[in-house]
């Protein structure tokens, strides 16, 4: 089976006539004969799908068939019908430079001590657990992991969960209820938004990383209380992220903590992208600002990114974690974390902490910082508009026009670079961008290659055909960024008309071999 269903199909979209819809197995027709059913989803809901997403679709869900390390192998696929369906050609694009995965510390590895330890644990424990933490799925590995996580974070206790997304969506409801107020950054991740919604608390949004906006909301909330009844709020919870995954910006934690203290609010910090990735010892934004972890009430993070595993954690006071152990949906209803995954986290965390007796972890943290600063500096020198903090390994490069993102992603893959392009709804419609994630595993040569290809690439759709290779980079770029040409001061022109850039590019460009 798996092909088209013949004959009567009464339950598909209840719209008479043919509605074409994409599917991996072929174009699926929702057939007439289901008139009595209300359409499963509205056509206007599909407007975006049909008109934007379909045209750019080949830039997402690109299947890979190797470890997502510094380079990976991408399975080549083509579409004969303008991205409605894809077929695999059987070719493998090997050695594509991976600028898309969140492999900040390079722990996505298929050899080495972490992998061996995970393999061993799998032999003993199996891959699954088949029970929840509260029932009979509380393995000693989980306890070990939680103890280590607490030590790593510098908090009293911690709890680990099987999925990062669910850590947010299933635990926020345990902490706040109706009558509480959540102040959420406008760019918070969907999982935080979902958790906040499920909690039943009132949600108010403050402008991204804008302390004035946050303070104003805090004051107003305390002074005026709940709407209509004017009763005081039970609790106020501020939810922020460490590094915002689409902006690359680092939260202004010291100021948030000052506000939180002043107004007696609680702080929920989601370190999905920052744990391991920033801070002199890789302990996330708290470490980055040299602050005390106890200033943050709820330290949440994921193991997916820097640790090369899966899952999430919440750290904080013992009272908090005890409360969660009793009240978290994850603990009562979800199968606990897979033991080999837990072991991978333990091994990589020990490595970062230096508990394995090596400096590999510390070296990687340093290397990541070095790579990040180098990569960002180069991009900025080349005249690109990039967002975010200088030390943030998430580097969004602004392309602005949604249509150009598609061309950009394709052209970069042609040149063996895997980048992520994002547009609406992850960003505003006029701020489509490409996103690079710098990793400690990237070598200087790889980063240089990315820079060079960004320049030399005769990305004619993006940069315009008439721009030849010899044009100064800003010429290419100003075309790339046409809608915002005003953003380019004249100094950039002068800065980049230096004669040696071309030579520099060519010397390293032609000798490209990483595999």
């Amino acid at each position, binding site marked *: 089976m*798996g092909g088209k269903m013949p004959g009567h199909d009464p339950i598909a979209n209840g719209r008479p006539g043919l509605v074409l819809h994409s*599917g*991996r197995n072929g174009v699926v027709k929702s057939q007439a004969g289901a008139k009595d059913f209300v359409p*499963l989803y509205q056509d206007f809901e599909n407007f975006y799908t049909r008109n934007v997403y379909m045209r750019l679709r080949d830039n997402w869900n690109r299947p890979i068939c*190797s470890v997502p390390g510094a380079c990976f192998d991408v399975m080549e696929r083509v579409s004969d019908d303008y991205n409605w369906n894809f077929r695999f050609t059987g070719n493998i694009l090997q050695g594509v430079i991976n600028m898309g995965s969140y492999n900040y510390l390079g722990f996505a590895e298929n050899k080495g001590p972490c992998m061996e330890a995970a393999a061993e644990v799998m032999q003993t424990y199996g891959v699954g657990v088949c029970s929840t933490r509260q029932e009979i799925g509380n393995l000693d590995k989980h306890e070990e992991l939680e103890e280590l996580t607490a030590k790593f974070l510098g908090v009293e206790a911690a709890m680990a969960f099987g999925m990062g997304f669910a850590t947010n969506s299933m635990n926020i409801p*345990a902490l706040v209820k109706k009558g509480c107020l959540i102040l959420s950054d406008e760019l918070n991740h969907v999982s935080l938004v979902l958790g906040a919604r499920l909690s039943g608390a009132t949600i108010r949004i403050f402008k991204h990383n804008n302390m004035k906006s946050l303070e104003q909301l805090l004051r107003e909330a305390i002074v005026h209380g709940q709407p209509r009844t004017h009763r005081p709020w039970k*609790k106020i919870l501020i939810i922020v992220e460490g590094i915002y995954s689409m902006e690359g910006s680092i939260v202004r934690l010291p100021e948030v903590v000052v506000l939180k203290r002043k107004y*007696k609010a609680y702080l929920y910090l989601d370190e999905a992208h920052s744990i391991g990735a920033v801070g002199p010892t890789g302990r996330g934004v708290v470490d980055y600002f040299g602050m005390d972890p106890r200033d943050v009430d709820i330290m949440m993070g994921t193991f997916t990114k820097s640790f090369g*595993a899966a899952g999430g954690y919440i750290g904080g006071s013992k009272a908090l974690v005890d409360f969660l152990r009793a009240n978290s949906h994850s603990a009562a209803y979800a199968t606990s974390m897979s033991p080999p995954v837990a072991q991978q986290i333990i091994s990589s965390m020990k490595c970062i902490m230096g508990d394995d007796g090596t400096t590999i972890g510390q070296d990687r943290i340093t290397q990541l910082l070095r790579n990040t600063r180098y990569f960002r500096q180069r991009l900025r020198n080349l005249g690109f508009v990039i967002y975010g903090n200088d030390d943030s390994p998430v580097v969004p490069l602004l392309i602005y026009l949604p249509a150009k993102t598609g061309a950009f992603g394709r052209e970069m893959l042609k040149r063996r670079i*895997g980048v992520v392009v994002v547009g609406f709804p992850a960003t505003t419609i006029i701020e489509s961008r490409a996103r690079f994630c710098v990793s400690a595993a990237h070598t200087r040569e790889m980063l240089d290659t990315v820079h060079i290809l960004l320049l030399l690439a005769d990305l004619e759709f993006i940069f315009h055909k008439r721009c030849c290779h010899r044009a100064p980079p800003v010429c290419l770029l100003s075309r790339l960024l046409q809608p915002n040409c005003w953003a380019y001061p004249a100094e950039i022109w002068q800065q980049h008309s230096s004669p040696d850039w071309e030579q520099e590019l060519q010397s390293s460009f032609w000798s490209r071999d990483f595999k």
Partner: protein
Amino acid sequence: MAGKCLALVVPASLAQRVRTMLQQRGWFNPRFRVVRNEDGSASIPVISCDVSDWFALLKEAGLETNKTLGTLTWRLAEDIEFPLSRHTPSPHELLVKAISSILELHKDSPERPPDWRDQLPRRWERHGDLAIIDQQAFASPFWDSFGPELWTAVTKALGVRRLAKQGRVQPDGYRTPAVTLLLGSDGVVERRENGISYTWDVRTCMFSAGNAHEKQRAAMWDCTGETVCDMYAGIGYFTLPVLVHSRAKLVLACEWNPNALHWLSVNLQQNGVSNRCRILPGDNRKAPAYHLLLEAFLIICIIRLLFFSKSYRPLDRTQLTQAEEEELIREWQPEPLVPAHPSPPYLNYRVVSGAAGKFVTVDNRECLNLSSLNFLGFLESPRIKAAALSSLRKYGVGTCGPRGFYGTFDVHLQLEEKLASMMATQEAIIYAYGPSAISSAIPAYAKRGDVVFADMAVNLPMQQGLAASRSNVRWFRHNDLDHLEMLLQEQAADDRKNPKKARVVRRFVVVEGIYLNTGNVCPLPELVQLKYRHNFRIFLEESLSFGVLGDTGRGLTEHFGIKVEDVDLICSTMENSLATIGGFCCGRSFIIDHQRLSGQGYCFSASLPPLLTSAALEALDMIEEKPEMFKELREKCRLLYDSVQGIPELSVGGAPISPVLHIRLAEPSQSRERDIATLEAIVESCAQEGVAITLARCIEKDEVFPPSPSIRLAVNVELTQEEIQKAAAVLRSAASRHLLE
């Protein structure tokens, strides 16, 4: 030195005579020389003109005009290469010469301008036998007195028969060229380019010879089978190449110039492609009256909204002074983040060392395991471990990204395909976490305003999905389809009252295959009957029935022999029977594919680690290879069901075929805490006797309908008859010890 020209091909013997006659009439092209061909004929360069004119001339020269008889004595050939004549004066020189001789004839004419030579045309455009000289040529009124005599001389010099003069391109939107005809009867010309003939009237239409390359490029596109729209078709500049050479299926040609439209249709017919072109005449700027009215109405609305509406003031707040505000802020004391002393119902987790397979080490005591949902005993399967290990050695542990951003691995695609083919559905989608499958799937379809009918016993992830959907949830009593039908009838009555709303309200029924909270089986056949009577969609959660029910483990649909298509969405975790991590949904592509953009747990979460994916693939293989294990599993389920019957003070909940059974107090006390403590004590004494069982945990305050406390027993196919009976006996003795004392 050579050039191309229209040729008259005649026998070589007559060439000289014909040439003289042509020269007399001015039809010979003096720029070229006559060429002698190998077949005994000669080609004479001529100026093109109407073929009928030739007949008389050729007859005079003694040539046969009837081409059908015998050998062909003469013919016309286009674009023949000719060498240039040796002393060919350039056309401009000829022009100067001709005009000089006319001026000689009219010596007496008044005030000849001193710069008359500069007023002669230097550039002209040739289309067939018509030349268009530029605007500045012969600008002075002096030339007007000569009339046709002058123009004849010019045509002779330029080697054409008709003459026209370029004017200013008129600013009328059509870009009418304003060409005036000086000599000749009409301005219709024909031009062949790339094997396409273009005909137009130079007086009314534009044509630029400079675009030939661009037209050639357009001709090279492969448009086979495509529909092309030419927004500014003109006389068919690009329409024709695309039709003739690019083989477009259909061209929609838009044009508003009536003259161009006339010639466009002529050209289409001439080139034999009119059947593949649809001409769309007219100006799209001409708005119909209703549109103007609509716009006027909108403008009025906007003005009203901007200037005449009251501004939005949700609360007329009293202004507080700064000091008052500070005081309020100082005084406010929030509740603690978490209660200082939480009542800890399940605070102390039991610690399991090693794998929780058939035997499990709980708090350092080895026990028989009747609590893990490891129905098929796959948790300890060496085959699955081996598959996962080879996956681990290839891919590492984590995926470091969501499915969209390089988190899709080949094994994910394989697993989705495998699940789809196993469940005989079109498509499957996998989630990285069991509960997130159903809790993401429900809000992907059910939205605010939709109606969802849900069984009161559905598990918490489903309740969360319902909460996230913000739909209108109607609860029906557990497995009570009569109650469901009653609610559906109520809904139908509402719909009749408000048919407009009913047309957009989607209706869903969400049920579980085997209920986690009760162990009962959903009466699916009756539900499917109801479905077609009341037009709702069925979402079925099969976490406990997938890999359990049915002859080959395909779940509830196989168990009841119901077509999979009758259920709209099947969802399940892979964390029970398959003993790995994650969940999946399967169904029609039309339904499933929607989740790839709308399933939040799918889009925004890191994908399932490849090693767990490979484990699931291997587990599915094992299910396919050994379908007899499901019969065995059902026997064990039945055995456990029978063995635990009749324990005093306890009641058994769940179906005989269910792999989980709920043991509840037959007469619960008023206090939930006390019941839990009693059951805990039973669990504890069972553990001491080497049988690990567990309470079914739930978070009471978050459940919509909290299930009463129970011990949940789970069957593992690897348990022997003796072991099941022993476990039942242990439970029985522990229960009697605690309950009868």
